[in-house]
């Protein structure tokens, strides 16, 4: 029945969208403080998927069988390691380029992206990797033939993304670090004059962005079970689309953009064509940039000389 198909696509869309939102946070925050698109962000997400699978396998070899404990410890470890990746990338590839040409950080970011992909490929092999199913089963609505379901893993994704977003919002709105982030975002030089250590803030933003992407990486890995060294590329463009859709630089915008992109993409895949769902997402990006480059919640950027 049509109602169930629609309901199913909506459930899938919201789950997918919350993942896009989590990864879009990294793009939007980095863009906010240094006005740069961090092209390597998608590959940081890819690294987090590998780290998650490795952590899970290590936990398993130590005989940890409790699923909630495994999920939470994998999340914590992956966020930490991926955060360190974020910090290192900023320190090695972007900080020396402050004040260089406009193009330099972008090219350096592409270099980092290639490096991460190739490093993971060389170290872990090019084949697809997988993780065992941790959470199975689903809540079903409808009859045996026509039904919409939300799997327990999808519920975990929704809850975990919600918690991650809540922590992030608290961090940005109420802590000293968050206040300094917002100040740096508004005006880096004035913030530095007023005693904010802007280099440290920029590093923190990279760490926060990478850790949030890691939450997304862990959840996607547990949900789909399989990944390879190339998943960061498409996910990176899509999360960037989400960030632009919501208004780049705006944190609620990233989440909203993620949800909108996830929903429209799921509906497109459900009703039009699954082969072209990536084409749809990329075409949507071009269309948004044409009609509303500052996104749903962003403000038009005024260039001052």
């Amino acid at each position: 029945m049509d109602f169930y198909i629609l309901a199913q696509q909506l459930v899938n869309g919201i789950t997918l969208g919350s993942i896009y939102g989590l990864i879009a946070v990294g793009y939007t925050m980095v863009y906010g403080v240094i006005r740069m698109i961090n092209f390597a962000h998608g590959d940081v997400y890819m690294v987090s998927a590998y780290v998650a699978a490795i952590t899970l396998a290590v936990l398993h070899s130590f005989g940890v069988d409790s699923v909630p404990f495994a999920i939470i410890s994998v999340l914590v470890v992956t966020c930490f390691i991926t955060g360190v990746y974020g910090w290192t990338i900023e320190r090695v590839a972007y900080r020396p380029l402050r004040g260089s040409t406009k193009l330099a950080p972008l090219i350096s970011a592409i270099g980092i992206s290639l490096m991460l992909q190739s490093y993971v490929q060389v170290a872990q092999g090019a084949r697809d990797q997988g993780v065992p199913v941790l959470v199975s089963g689903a809540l079903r609505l409808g009859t045996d033939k026509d039904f919409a379901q939300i799997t327990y893993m999808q519920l975990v994704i929704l809850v975990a993304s919600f918690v991650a977003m809540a922590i992030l919002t608290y961090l940005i709105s109420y802590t000293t670090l968050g206040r300094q982030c917002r100040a740096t975002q508004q005006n880096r030089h004035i913030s530095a004059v007023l005693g904010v250590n802007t280099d440290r803030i920029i590093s923190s933003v990279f760490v926060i962005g990478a850790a949030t992407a890691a939450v997304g990486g862990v959840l996607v890995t547990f949900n789909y079970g399989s990944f390879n060294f190339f998943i960061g590329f498409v996910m990176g463009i899509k999360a960037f689309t989400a960030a632009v859709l919501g208004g780049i630089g705006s944190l609620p915008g990233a989440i909203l953009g993620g949800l909108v992109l996830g929903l429209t993409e799921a509906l497109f895949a459900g009703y039009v064509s699954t082969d072209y769902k990536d084409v749809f997402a990329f075409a949507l990006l071009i269309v948004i940039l044409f009609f509303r480059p500052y996104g749903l919640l962003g403000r038009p950027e005024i260039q001052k000389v």
Partner: protein
Amino acid sequence: MDNAKIPAKLLKEAVFTFVLSLIVFGPISGLVLTGFTVENKLARPLIIASVVTIGRVLFTLFLETSLGRRLIARMAGTAGSGVTVESGNERFPYAAVAIAFAVGLAFPLMADEYWLGVAILALIYVLLGLGLNIVVGLAGLLDLGFVAFYAVGAYLLALGAQYLGLGFWGALALAPLIAAFCGMVLAFPVLRMHGDYLAIVTLGFGEIIRLVLNNWLDFTGGPNGAAVPAPTFLGLEFTRTARQGGTPFHEFFGISYSADYKFWFIYLVLFLVVAAVIYVVNRLKSMPIGRLWEALREDEIACRSLGVNHVATKLSAFMLGASTGGVAGVFFAVHQGFVNPTSFTFFESALILAIVVLGGLGSTLGVVMAALVLTILPEVLRDFAEYRVLVFGILMVVMMVWRPRGLVRIKRPAFFPSSAPAAVPALAAAEAAQ
């Protein structure tokens, strides 16, 4: 710095670097996933971390020496401007160019089939590099989907031959127009906006083209690809026996048959096209349009306040770059005899970008050299093919940190009124002083 503090600082730095690289390299290279378990290779991250730490310490020590201090001073001094303005008295190196041209033309006589193939591929990348150099190097627009135009050219020949009976020469004439049109449709909406957006939109566009080629089975043949007809020379074919009613090339000239003639022909046409593109790009650089590109790259706001139509200027660069990419695509298709979407992935775009970046953004000579090196080196170092992308990535980052303007120093022609030669030295001195 105070000399007494160096050992303590070094130790702190070394410990920090070591711990950091252990965390970064530990999980990925130390624990290899095999199925749902991991294989222990923890020695690898220890080695990598030690190498990184030693490198870091040596680098810090080096920067403390007098040579290192001079290097830092030089970096600080020249980071902003890497452009030398010519004095106007330079002679054009006619002899060197003539020799290079003659050697290039005579190359097929010296090379065997294998190296001829490598040379054709290298020249295709030279062409791609020159095209992208107009966009990225001269106009400063980061195009990450350049491979899309390459694909347009290649598929134009393959599908044009299949559906419209288009031949090599027809495709060669049409490819620049169609690729430029695609470039215009793509870039026109985006060029008005922030430069970073262009990068991501072109990246998306490159993927759209590849996905459409891959999924539109009925029209493009999907992942199976499409065959490309062999080229002809004045209607003469390069096969052993011609199709009905035709004469093969070797019979017409009364020479014995060789399968190499086709590649000789492709090489020579390609070489002439590359030479023509180099000539055109060099002329464009000193024309008003080329100077506008470079001016927009350096400071867009200043240009717009002086009344430069930034959209039209950027669009012209983008379209010219795209059409060069389209021409390269035609040569790629005719050389391979077959095209499929796997030849047009993002990696290809990144490789072309690496060529432009390593050659020095905006330098024609640098781009040609980088393209030759980056295509011939992997042929020589086949054993290290696995690490090729890794090395490209590292090179891109190192180049940006070390010399964001590229290895070859860019020279900009100076302009003086031809009627007043006496004013030349004074003006040149004034420019140099700036």
